[in-house]
């Protein structure tokens, strides 16, 4: 049941930051509410101490998508529906549009927001693997100031980020992608609609003839948090994309996931499958 809670609706970002600063740990920003509200219903420990909700869903400063510095700035409270529909994102960052289109249902995508998807750092956050391979940077603001950092550093461990109680993720910056990269986002759920991810992969590859000139690999739902695989990437650079090597790479991905995640109840299924689908993904991209 949703507890009785103080609900505040700031008129602009400055007001919102003041409220967060004033209420501290007992306040939480709410945008779509697609994580917090079901969390209340099951009395989730993550939300039990909240006394005040600060509604940021309509703040103009964080609900816009703009083009600058050769890349794209996406406001933290931009919904997935907006991302799916945005021509620039579809054209330049298609894996993010793909991932966004597969999140929840139409109704959920109409409410759920980009920053809302990763500020809780759930392992199955679908936007994270594509954002990681696009080298996304987050802008974090509070009354104390503003900082920028790579998303990979912002995400610490399951359900833990660098975000402080008085802070808010205001924007996500996707830098320009060098020419020649192509990639694919892959999601496996138990069903096709309204599915929580069991495996996600985002892979970007730049080929020079048959040689892998550059590669970026990220996963979600199979690792404790969404993450890149730098060793794997380093190893693949300069190699010929032949089936035998791609299989080797897939096996190593499996080994690294096992190392990072350890054995879980789901390992017997997920580990072999992630190697299979990663291999098939590489075969398709490197053709």
């Amino acid at each position, binding site marked *: 049941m949703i507890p009785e809670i103080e609900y505040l609706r700031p008129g602009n970002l400055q007001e919102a930051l003041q409220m967060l600063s004033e209420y501290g740990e007992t306040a939480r920003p709410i945008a779509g509410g697609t994580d917090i509200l079901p969390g209340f219903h099951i009395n989730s420990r993550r939300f039990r101490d909240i006394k005040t909700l600060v509604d940021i869903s309509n703040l103009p400063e964080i609900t816009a998508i703009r083009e600058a510095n050769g890349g794209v700035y996406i406001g933290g409270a931009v919904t997935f529906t907006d991302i799916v529909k945005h021509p620039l994102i579809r054209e330049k960052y298609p894996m993010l549009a793909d991932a966004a289109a597969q999140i929840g249902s139409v109704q959920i995508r109409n409410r759920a927001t980009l920053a809302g998807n990763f500020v809780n750092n759930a392992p199955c956050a679908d936007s994270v693997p594509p954002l990681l391979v696009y080298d996304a940077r987050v802008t974090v603001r509070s009354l104390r100031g503003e900082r920028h950092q790579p998303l990979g550093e912002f995400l610490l461990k399951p359900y833990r980020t660098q975000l402080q109680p008085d802070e808010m993720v205001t924007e996500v910056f996707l830098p320009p992608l060098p020419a020649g990269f192509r990639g694919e986002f892959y999601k496996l759920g138990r*069903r096709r609609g309204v599915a929580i991810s069991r495996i996600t992969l985002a892979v970007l590859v730049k080929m020079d003839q048959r040689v892998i000139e550059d590669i970026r690999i990220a996963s979600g739902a199979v690792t404790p948090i969404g993450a890149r695989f730098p060793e794997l990437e380093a190893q693949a650079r300069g190699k010929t994309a032949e089936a035998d090597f791609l299989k080797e790479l897939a096996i190593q991905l499996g080994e690294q996931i096992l190392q990072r995640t350890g054995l879980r109840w789901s390992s017997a299924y997920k580990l*072999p*499958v992630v190697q299979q689908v990663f291999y098939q993904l590489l075969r398709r991209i490197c053709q």
Partner: protein
Amino acid sequence: MKKSKFNIVGKPVIRQDGLEKVTGQAKFADDINYPNQLYGVMVRVPVAHAKIRSIDYSAIENHPALTTICDANDIPGAKKVGPIKQDQPIFCYQKIVTPGDVVAMLVGESEEELLRLRELVNVEYEPLPVLTDPRKALEPDAPLIHPELGSNLVIHHPLRKGDVEKGFAESDYILEQTYTTPFIEHAYIEPEAVIAIPREGNKGVHIVGSIQNPYTTRKVVAAVLGWPLAKVRIQQAELGGSFGGKDDIMNILSARAAVAALKTGRPVKIRYRREESIQESYKRHAYYMHYKVGFTREGKIKAMKIDIIADGGAYSSMTPFVTWRTVVQATGPYEIENVWTDVRGVYTNNPYAGAMRGFGSPQPIFAQESIMDEIAVQLGMTPDEIRRINGFRSGSITATGQKLEKHDVNVLTVLETAVRETDFARRWRENQQQTKKRLDLAALEEAAANPGPFILHKEDFLEPEEVLRKGIGLAVSFRGTSLGAEGVDAVAAYLSLQQDGSAYLLSGLAENGQGMRTTYSIIAAEVLGLRPEDIYYLDLDTGYVGDSGPTVASRATLMGGGATKVAAETLRQRLEKVLRRHWNLPETTNFVFADRTVYPENQPDRKIAFAELCNLAYWEGVNLATIGWYSGPKVHWDESVGQGPAYFTYVYGCQVAEVTVNLSTGEVYVERVVAVHDPGTVINLLGAQGQVYGGVTQGAGYGLWEEISVDQGFIRELNFDQYLIPTSKDIGEIVPIFVEGEERYGAWGAKSLGEPTLELTAAAIANAVRNATGRRFHHLPLNLEEILLGRKLYPTSKRGSV
């Protein structure tokens, strides 16, 4: 075409209650509020099996948020209820036998406060050994769930026909397989809600709720209160889904609300959240089925021996009747000389199992249709061939010794229609030829418990082009209509014509979302020459028409349709009499009722408007209201050997599923389902198609995703993030085809459709997966792990784990 003789019957009619439902105006039980109302909140104990020592309310009894507490001590009448055996307490007072059990209900104005207070009730209990495996329920040292009964056996249905040992001796081959199916949640969109209103003077209590079977609810509430039936009035609110699930649980919640309402003198509402709904409500039975089949090299089945254990969970509920349908239908629509079947329902500490759409048929159909395909493969036949050899024909004798006659026995007709529509045999054979490289992870995993096997070898990898495999599979069934030898089978329908030609209609059966109001309105309109929208359907209230039994067993169209037709024909005859007098026509004159007019046959120019005729009758003092009554013919049953004419007639269906299986992930996508059904006469084409779309989708859920799994009696899947039902994206095209067989019962031979549409799909999908992968799967659902590993994996921790 028989349809041509009708004006409306068989055409697509938009349902009468559709608009208010899709626009959010319909009033469901929780939309109904009364001034001064209280809420009831349940107190449970987190244990699956225990003896209750004491319940201590001292920490909360003086709390201002608490108006009163109700427990077993407040019940004036029956403390335990149940449709067949009265083994389920309204409030537990001796034992807890499953985690959904309720020991008390806190009553007050704020639900939120009560939810907090219930944590402070101190129940002292002595834990008892927990029984979760129904296959161990009858072992001598098994813990007894209800010790006073002396055994965990709820029911045993034996069926003995011919001599199975002789049949096996005459067989060229014998095939033995074991199949299992899990508990299933109804997943109605609207969780339980009910409000009880105490009334002044001797008016008793009025209950409005999300209730599937108001007359059953009335019986339970009256028994619990120790009151006469007439002092309890049950009204059905608009109901947001049931699928057989709003029976026992709603009877019990209604009784709790009534007890509290009478104790406090104020209206009391109970409404469940999804978790509580899934935790306490009953499920479809989990089945463990062993089939042994003997057959000749020509494909003739000589003998079938079946041993089934049904997990009834903590209470008997409908287990005796659910398993009875199983014993009648377990051999499928095949004529088999020698049959030996044992179906046993047993108690465990699992959630209790009761009625759910299908009612004891989806489980054996999965087993029997799987094994039929295995026989075909073994003999080098196609699945349709083996069924053609053994399928029922007119005059066939069923396993219960019943001769199928006096209706179209359409097993083979629906089969041929489906096979033709899908080019089945050719495609099935083609798929069988596919080279089948697949991951054998089960073998990998067995190798060791160390992580090694989870890492693939290079030779294990599949290339993108060899990942997807097509499969096609079919399943056929016969289904006894209505209640059969389970019980009394009679229905009332009240029809009242008004002076202006409009009409009220109400049957004693309930609109549970199946579109029954529209079906009945079509039937009345067809007889009287009206339009369905001229008929105004009344709210169901047990005070208005006679007890018509429960709205179950796909009996509404057949039985209530029959009653509605009787009522409409009675009034039509009265109107004809008025007209003969008015126009001075002989007794032999026949009339045509059409387009809101009436005229003598062959004299279409001599027309009277229906409204004018009603007005005429009204001023002549003619009774324009009547109650139609329709009762099924007698059936009988010898329970010692399971022989007799179990049901008075049957319906037949065949579904073909076309799937794509992803060999690297275990995903199964249902591309297309062709569903061919003989429901007798179709009354509302749109309603019939809707039943097929819904039933097939629900059946696909049973096949691929749905499972209530139980850990020491506790349900793991308490909401729809974990209990997965298919979405519109998860199933491709569904093609309904109706073969309308001749039938003498019901309105113009309109029989049953709701359950047949659901019972076949999982079996057809499993056969299609077999066709695609070359591998037989014995355990529903065929989820990702089942397909790849041949077993299920369950989370070891709580929610959120992936």
